[in-house]
């Protein structure tokens, strides 16, 4: 019942309206508002009034303009960075050590034997001293004794060829080993996979249009001495021959490219890597681990701070580039070690043996240990971030941890843990955290699996895909090579991978000294040999031994952390500042203003209703040719529609109704403007309206 009463009353009040005209409303607002300008407008003389009116307008527009700028600034999500430098107890970085050479040659010899024979024979052909300046790599067929025992099938999967450039415009391709096929791959490929992006690449050796020319020239049947190609002008400094790797989409096909190299050394290395990759990819992982360097052979001594450690403190992982790698303090199964003192005395000291004699000669020409500092639980990407340590030296590495902590979306486009990156992280099989390198490699491998149908040996495998090898995927090298040099593929990967928000880099200050010194060499080698092999003979030498010191510098961290430059608090205080500065206003002023707008809308609605009603009445009156209503009546009708309406709703005369209604009304009394004061209707009516309008 009460509720109904309340609603009725509310309805009445709605119909009644705020009870004053626009002008009253405005004047009341100006007089009572807390913003500073409007008060002046009504309080001053007529000229000042005008000035103040324009000033107020100006200030109001200034406020809105500045608010626009502020909000825009806020929405641009700027950040400020703060930098801190100092020393604190920090987690010692994970240290990955590998040998630059992935496998012991003695262990993999049986696999690579054929390959080595092939390359040795090929080099023999290429490097043979010839008469004059022109060398003609001689070609032989299978009957020649030198080529006996060569696995030419293996060679022909990815052959090396010589490109004869005596005639610049018409380079001739010379096969190194004559095979049974007389016309070796009438290579008429456009293959300029060799071109550098800018296209100024030297001799985009595309096989000459009539590739048979090459074939003819190099295949004089049983000729042990092929006719030397055109006796050239011996004076030119230009090198006449280039080595190239011939890559075909599948064996015997015409779709071939020649990946040519300005340097034979590079060509040989590249060829060897392709071939050995194919061979090794067929070897199961366990076997590969066995063929690599074992921890006890490689890590001879270890000291962390004052505490001794040994190879058992290292976690072994198989790294495709470098074989067995050993990670100290990876934090996978144990809590990461802290280091709370700067200086070499409190860091990690290692003595490694890389046994250079056991390197695979053609695979890696640089000798040393590969090492890398990285975060706990992250995968070491040695090719990117790793450094070398030279044999026979002591390498000291002072570490400064350079951290960058960024805010995520919307401040910058980075990812917290990689879960929002559309690339499947293949390195998650190592249980490692997301990193941009992992993403890029996964992206490449996924593409490779998609396009070539097999995975590259250097990267982890996606599900259900096997590693590429020459037997199962004869065209993989061609496919891989074209994919690798495809700029589009790289761009796709760059675009789809995001960097991590927290980026930690280890800045290293590297210094080197000869180690062991000549005086101490003898006893050090003796002791280390004894400890490793239990032999009294020296089994180590300068070419294999490496000492490493890794320690925190005096300042061990430099952290750049981001914080939002514009927070909501900043925005509010700036908005408030602006409003306050120009007009002395606050949120309450805005509410006041809103109230006024509601009131005026209310008045408008009531006026419109009244006007409509008046129109109807007029029409009704027009039918009866009565005397027209007086002006005062009309005005009353306009101004006091609310009251009329109430009358229509069969409510007793408003004067009394109001008098009765007021006292029990709960809540705040209605605003007591003078105009609202109840007085006889006629007294208020036309007279006041006439003056206000």
């Amino acid at each position, binding site marked *: 019942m009460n509720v109904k009463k309340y609603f009725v009353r509310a309805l009445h009040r709605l119909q009644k309206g705020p009870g004053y005209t626009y002008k009253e409303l405005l004047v009341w607002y100006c007089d009572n508002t807390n913003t500073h300008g409007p008060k002046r407008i009504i309080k001053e003389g007529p000229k000042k009034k005008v000035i103040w009116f324009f000033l107020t307008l100006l200030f109001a527009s200034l406020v809105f303009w500045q608010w626009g700028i502020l909000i825009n600034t806020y929405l641009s999500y700027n950040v400020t960075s703060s930098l801190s430098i100092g020393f604190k107890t920090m987690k010692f970085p994970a240290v990955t050590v590998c040998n630059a050479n992935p496998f012991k040659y003695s262990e993999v010899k049986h696999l690579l034997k054929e390959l080595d024979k092939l390359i040795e024979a090929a080099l023999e052909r290429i490097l043979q001293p010839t008469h004059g300046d022109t060398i003609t790599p001689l070609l032989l067929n299978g009957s020649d004794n030198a080529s006996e025992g060569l696995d030419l099938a293996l060679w022909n999967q990815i052959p090396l060829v010589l490109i004869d450039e005596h005639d610049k415009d018409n380079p001739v391709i010379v096969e190194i080993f004559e095979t049974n096929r007389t016309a070796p791959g009438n290579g008429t490929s456009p293959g300029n996979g060799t071109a*550098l992006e800018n296209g100024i690449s030297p001799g985009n050796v595309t096989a000459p249009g009539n590739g048979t020319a090459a074939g003819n020239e190099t295949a004089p049947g049983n000729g042990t001495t092929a006719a030397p190609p055109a006796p050239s002008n011996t004076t030119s400094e230009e090198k006449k021959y280039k080595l190239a790797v011939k890559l075909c989409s599948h064996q015997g096909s015409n779709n071939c490219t020649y990946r040519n190299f300005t340097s034979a050394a590079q060509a040989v290395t590249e060829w060897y890597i392709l071939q050995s990759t194919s061979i090794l990819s067929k070897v199961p992982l366990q076997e590969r681990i066995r063929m690599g360097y074992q921890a006890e052979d490689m890590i001879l001594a270890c000291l962390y701070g004052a505490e001794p450690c040994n190879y058992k403190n290292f976690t072994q992982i198989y790294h495709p580039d470098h074989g067995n790698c050993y990670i100290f303090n990876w934090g996978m199964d144990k809590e990461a070690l802290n280091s709370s003192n700067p200086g070499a005395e409190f860091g990690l000291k290692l003595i490694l043996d890389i046994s250079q004699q056991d390197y695979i000669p053609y695979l890696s020409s640089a000798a040393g240990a590969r090492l890398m500092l990285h975060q706990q639980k992250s995968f070491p990407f040695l090719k990117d971030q790793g450094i070398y340590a*030279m044999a026979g030296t002591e390498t000291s590495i002072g570490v400064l941890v350079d951290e960058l902590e960024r805010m995520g979306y919307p401040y910058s486009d980075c990812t917290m843990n990689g879960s929002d990156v559309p690339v499947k992280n293949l390195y998650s099989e190592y249980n490692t955290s997301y990193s941009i390198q992992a993403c890029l490699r996964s992206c490449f491998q996924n593409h490779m699996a998609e396009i070539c149908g097999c995975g590259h040996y250097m990267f982890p495998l996606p599900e259900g895909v096997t590693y590429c090898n020459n037997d199962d995927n004869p065209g993989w090298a061609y496919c891989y090579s074209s994919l690798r040099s495809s700029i589009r593929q*790289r761009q796709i990967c760059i675009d789809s991978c995001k960097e991590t928000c927290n980026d930690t880099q280890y800045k290293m200050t590297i210094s080197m000294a000869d180690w062991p010194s000549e005086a101490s060499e003898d006893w050090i080698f003796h002791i280390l040999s004894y400890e490793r092999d239990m032999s009294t003979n020296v089994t180590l030498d300068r070419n294999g031994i490496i000492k490493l010191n890794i320690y925190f510098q005096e300042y061990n961290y430099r952290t750049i952390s981001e914080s939002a430059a514009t927070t909501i608090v900043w925005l509010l205080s700036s908005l408030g500042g602006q409003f306050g500065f120009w007009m002395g206003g606050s949120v309450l002023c805005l509410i006041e203003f809103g109230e006024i707008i509601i009131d005026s809308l209310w008045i408008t609605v009531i006026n419109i209703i009244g006007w409509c009603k008046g129109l109807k009445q007029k029409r009704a009156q027009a039918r009866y040719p009565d005397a027209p209503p007086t002006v005062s009546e009309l005005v009353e009708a306009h101004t006091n529609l609310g009251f009329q309406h109430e009358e229509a709703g069969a409510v007793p005369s408003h004067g009394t109704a109001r008098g009765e209604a007021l006292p029990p009304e709960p809540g705040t009394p209605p605003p007591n403007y003078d105009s609202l004061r109840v007085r006889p209707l006629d007294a208020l009516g036309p007279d006041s309206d006439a003056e206000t309008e």
Partner: protein
Amino acid sequence: MAPGKKITARIKRTLPVRGPQAPTLSELMRWYCLNTNTHGCRRIVVSRGRLRRFIWILLTLSAVGLILWQCAELLLNYYSASVSVTVQFQKLPFPAVTICNINPYKYSSMKDYLSELDKETKKALETFYGFSEGKSKVRRSAGDWNETESHFSRQIPLLKFEDFSKTATDLRSGRKRKIEGSVFHKDSSIVNSGDSNDIIGFQLCDANNSSECALYTFSSGVNAIQEWYKLHYMNIMAQIPLETKEELSYSADDLLLTCFFDGLSCDKRHFTRFHHPLHGNCYTFNSGENGTILSTSTGGSEYGLQVVLYIDEADYNPFLVTSTGAKIIVHDQDEYPFIEDIGTEIETAAATSIGMHFTRSRKLSKPYSDCTETGADIPVENLYNKSYSLQICLHSCFQKAMVESCGCAQYTQPLPAGAEYCNYKKNPNWMYCYYRLHEKFVKEQLGCQQICKDACSFKEWALTTSIAQWPSVVSEDWMLRVLSWDKGQKINKLNKTDLANLMVFYKDLNERFISENPTNTLVILLSNFGGQLGLWMSCSVVCVIEIVEVFFIDSLSIVMRRQWQKAKKWWNDRKREGSGKPPQVGDVERQGHDNPVCIDEDLPTFNTALRLPLPQESHLPRTPPPNYSTLRLETAFTEQLPDTLEAGQH
């Protein structure tokens, strides 16, 4: 009435010029305090009790003080910058990599120019240290010694000091002589000069005035001989035209054995020759000369630049350079490579792997910091054909000073227009002049360090260098053979100490961009002002205008009016005294116009503005207005404060 008077009267009527409503200053102040929007003033007026009022005055004043202080602080800190670091992962432009052999020119081809000098150097070694270089690569010519006039030593005599007395043995004559002139120590020989009694040095004399000499001594003969050699060497080189020098130095084919970039082969066409006065021919990879700049879209050692350099150790100049290897510098395409200053040395028989990390920085120029965007505002002409850097500015500045005071240009820096390199034939005095000038430059007396500013933006490649043995023991054999084939030397195999392997690559493709941004903009400054004003006094610009209005315009007009009235009165009194007439109507009129108090015009209040009749009775319940009794006491202004008063009072 006169027509003029009529017009003024009309103007007065239509445009009533009225002063402030308050008749006196104190009333104006009171009116202001009661009506102002700022908070403190009102309290002063409405407070009761002297103590309370005093406290309010104090508080208001301190609030004003605080506002002024804080706003001044805000203004002073307006030009401050905040640093932001952004990291972007993207395809990065590969920097230019300039590679030089440490030895500038092939010694074998320089024989024609240097044989005399070498002979003399050897002679000096023999006289001072008593040994003769037996198995020298240079033809021995001790016999010629006596015949050829040793003009090098005559120009700059090498001297050996017996002890630190002023006697010295001259290399040429072997006789002792007394040394006059000031002594400069190139090394810190002062420290151990006491126990070392064979100090060696050379004397530079002013050619025009031979009594003015400067003596340069070195604690070690190694430095002295090298420095002495270098002086003569520069003399000789300055006379050789550039084309010849380029021919004397290494060609791209000589230096570069193999090249590999981004997994693809490259060759000498990717390198641009750049002649460095001290390092001979250097080769810049990716110099951007043909308009394209290579970029890397994959990090890691395989995708960077890999070159094998041929360092022909046998062809080194024994006196000029004493170390073997190459020097490289990673720089931006439009930066000048200051190889001699910031180059990284590359060892032979080793693979040097250089991982790069790219950082771009940007400072705000004036008025935030004193740096220059393009160098155009620096009064030093840029002699290098590259974009501005501090180093370029300093070198150019020195070269300019050199040309001005010595009349010729120093050999290691580019030539300014119209100048030529110093050589002993044309400028016999240049060495002395150069040393003097250099001394001044180092002591910052030339003003170069003051004129030159650092550049606002710069790119930096942080390098992580590590070295591995190369070629490895087992691969040495085939590697050297194949490389020899590459080089075209079929018979004699290369020596591994003549080779250096270099890898330059991006460690990751993250570009760090460190930039300064202005902390404050005008909008924020105004916001802060507003915050301060609002916090302490709830003031705004409106208040400031009010203050200006009341305290300056109104007060001034009141004072003026007072004075005017006084003057008027005094004038009228005098007149009346003179004529004895009663005051005229015009006075009243004027008063009425000037003094609003006399006119019965209220400030427009809400009621008056509407011309609403005041209510007969006010029985309706309404919130009582604040009942400050103080207000009631103010009789003079009650009419003007309708909003603060009970309406019923009327």
